[in-house]
């Protein structure tokens, strides 16, 4: 599992992914971690298959007990099916996740970790030196769905929004936006169900100051590619499994 430090100024952001030992049949995922002096938040920690490589990669940057909080943008297996294992590793941690998924997520096995349901309108979390926002992204693609915004680092962890299906050896950042489009088009058209939800999200996100838009699959959008992505996504018709 490769780890990349994407921000380091008072607190750090790490991106984990591109695991060369990952079974080929499972989708490549990006996991993220924010580390402050006292605490660490693990975002979309991933599936059972990536648990060991993830824990191994984390231990290069933080102690086990430093991880006090987990976040799951939604309930998908590639996001959080490792929950039962984290439950054994971090019995005192809190899981921040959509309130509507609590009784579903508990099926992954959760006896120790405390579930903190994020309300529909979103919420905040303070990690000591940094205040993060859980921004609603409902129906993008799950019916209860959030992204994490760090106003200080100007990073938006955007879950499946901005995801691309491509080789797990691909670079961390999008370099040529036009070239990147074919890798994300089908994903967004098929996995995102609602144009209304999409446009509402774009309107709210345009008001944020974003340097990095960091999705759970594929590459991170940096600088002007963030705006290019929002423009492209706005023009895109989604929910295409149903003929209009």
């Amino acid at each position: 599992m490769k780890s990349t430090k994407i921000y380091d100024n008072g607190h750090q952001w790490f991106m984990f992914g591109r695991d060369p030992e990952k079974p080929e049949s499972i989708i490549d995922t990006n996991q993220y971690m924010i580390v402050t002096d006292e605490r660490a938040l693990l975002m979309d920690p991933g599936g059972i298959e990536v648990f060991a490589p993830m824990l191994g990669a984390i231990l290069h940057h933080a102690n086990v007990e430093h991880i006090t909080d987990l976040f799951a943008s939604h309930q998908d297996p590639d996001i959080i099916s490792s929950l039962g294992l984290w439950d054994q590793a971090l019995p005192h941690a809190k899981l921040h996740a959509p309130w509507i998924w609590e009784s579903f997520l508990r099926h992954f096995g959760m006896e120790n970790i405390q579930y903190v349901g994020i309300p529909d309108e979103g919420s905040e979390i303070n990690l000591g030196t940094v205040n993060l926002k859980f921004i609603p992204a409902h129906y993008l693609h799950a019916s209860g769905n959030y992204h994490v915004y760090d106003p200080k680092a100007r990073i938006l962890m955007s879950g499946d929004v901005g995801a691309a299906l491509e080789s797990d050896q691909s670079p961390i950042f999008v370099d040529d936006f036009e070239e990147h489009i074919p890798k994300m088009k089908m994903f967004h058209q098929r996995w995102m169900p609602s144009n209304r939800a999409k446009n509402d999200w774009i309107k709210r996100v345009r008001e944020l100051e974003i340097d990095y838009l960091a999705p759970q699959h594929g590459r991170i959008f940096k600088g002007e590619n963030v705006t290019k992505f929002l423009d492209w996504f706005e023009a895109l018709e989604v929910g295409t499994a149903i003929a209009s």
Partner: protein
Amino acid sequence: MSTDSKLKESRFVALASIAAELHSVMAVAKGVSLAAKNAKYISAQAGENALGFQPITDFIDEISQQAITGVNSINEAALKLSKIAVYEQRSCNAYQRFNLVYTKHKNANHIKSLSDTMIRVEDKMETTSKKYKHRLNELVELLESMDECMRSAQSIASVSRIVTSSSNEYQAKLEIVANSLDEAAKFIKEKVSGSYHHLNHIKAYSNG
């Protein structure tokens, strides 16, 4: 602790199979109980003509009741054991992954922080394993007493055949009940021995 996942998998299947084996016992035991109740009713009506007949039908009824209760307890014990096994497997699963991380990332800056977690999970595994063994013994005892119960059912069936030779009017009726008890006991014993067979898989795991 064995790490053979195939063996663990068979442990869950084995426990479910015990419950399944004994599921069919329930219907049979209920059938015997009904036959015994029927016979009791007839013997009550027959009064003095059916002396010697009544205690036997009472006993048959009691034995079939014991079988019903026994099956319920065995099912309950197998389910509890299965739940503990799942719990144990989950800790074991996590532990194996921690171990993998520990050996693979020896040089990671914070690898030492994993030791406490591993010790904690190890302790938990030990406690669960003790609980598991205790429950397993309980299940063995329940199966043994079921076997015992069926052995006495078979003796009662033979005794009732001797009694029937001296009572003529109710001979046919008691013979039917005795036969059905004998058949049922044979059937249940077979199922119990099938359960023992499954139990051997489970024991192989806990001794491993």
